[in-house]
């Protein structure tokens, strides 16, 4: 059983969450026309053996999307943040 550390609800069992996959992917702009860019976003995955940044949805709790650092080899849970805070950081960095 994984125990995720929800920033709002505290430590909770994985059964309260839904997995959302790789959180390092950034959705291309809707006007993006390059099929290579969409190929990378939709299909290709780094799939690291080790630290992985991923989305989890706390659907049986606060219903927030989280970004969790988790090691895919050891299942060790690292830093956990609200996805919207991470998104703010990403857009600030882009500006």
């Amino acid at each position, binding site marked *: 059983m994984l125990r995720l550390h929800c920033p709002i609800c505290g430590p909770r069992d994985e059964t309260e969450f839904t997995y959302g*996959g790789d959180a390092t992917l950034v959705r291309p702009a809707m006007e993006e026309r390059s099929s290579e860019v969409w*190929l990378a976003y939709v*299909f290709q*995955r*780094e799939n690291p053996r080790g630290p992985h940044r991923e989305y989890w949805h706390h659907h049986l709790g606060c219903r927030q999307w989280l970004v969790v650092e988790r090691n895919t080899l050891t299942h060790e849970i690292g830093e956990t943040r609200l996805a919207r805070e991470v998104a703010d950081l990403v857009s600030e960095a882009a500006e």
Partner: protein
Amino acid sequence: MRYSALAVLRHALSGNRDWARAWRDPEPKPAYDVVIVGGGGHGLATAYYLAKEHGLRNVAVLEKGWLGGGNTGRNTTIVRSNYMMPGNTLFYERSMKLWENLSRDLNFNVMFSQRGQYNLCHSPAQMDAARRRGNVMRANGIDAELIDREEVRRRLPYLDYSERARFPIHGAIYQGRAGTARHDAVAWGFARGADRLGVDLIQRCEVLGFLRDGHRIVGVETSRGPIRAGKVGLAVAGHSGHLAKKAGLILPIESHALQAFVTEPLKPLIDTVISFGAAHFYISQSDKGGLVLGGDLDGYNSYAQRGGLPIVEHTLASAKALMPALSRLRLLRHWAGVMDMSMDGSPIITKTPIEGLYLNGGWCYGGFKATPASGWCFAWTIAKETPHEDNAEFTLDRFRRGVQIDEKGMGPTPNAH
């Protein structure tokens, strides 16, 4: 030495003390025509068919652990060919035909048992979908039977047909030629067959990187030194993404853990293979009497060969919903393997954009049944530089072209296939 009933008798008389080892344990040579990375069923089958069908005998299989120690030794041993998407259907049927003659071909008993497989249906809509699947199979010359609730009840009287059944059984689609095989024996049979044709099987030899000449890959860097090769084939499902990345290739694959379970041994109870249609669950009985069962992925990326408890509970709840009599049975063991979950649920057997590198992976749940055809088609692709028509659709660029082979209709969500 050929194995035979006479040999068994002769060795029995001499106390079974002088059986020769089944394959050599050679030191790696500095160079080979072809190096296959991964000594599981698929890699060993590839080497066997390279030597047997294409006369390529200067071949090595490199395995970081021991032969068949990955998913070949961790699956639930089910063999079937009930696929309906173009690209899949005839490939899995080729595999079935190879299975049917495999013990004889390898002179090694892989204990292939065509005990039949039932896919249960729990709604009229599921019966319609099963009828469509059965028609596609029969149109391709594959056996399929649609049977109603009463016939399922006659054949499998121990399932829950009561008023209280959470998912009432409406019928089933049945493939009589499906069944099970002894998973370790498949690895050992192909290993012995390849070794007898001159292939070097090199264990405890981990591939750490690739040797390059310009863009071309000309060998591998291993824990036992560099080994040069005309061609390098990857057959390391579970770790395909990890190894391909070292060659500079990003794959449409995520690695996920899938668990399997075995109960304490029982008297003969289930003489076939049963797949539950309401949840993802399948069950059969091993020759030792243990019920072998499996279910869903754990659901998050993982390279750990162990699973979590929520899936244990979920799988056993499915077991009990289907067969209430199992409720007091004790679980003996559970374990997990690392799956290459591809983005459409179908495999990849292809030349890669990198010269000298060939890829066999993306097997999701379906690798064991595919073992013979996977090796057969991968050997063809490596030897002839072009895919056979049965693996022609298993390319990497199907994702670029938008023509995925999505048997379950799930879209690019690897943990849902």
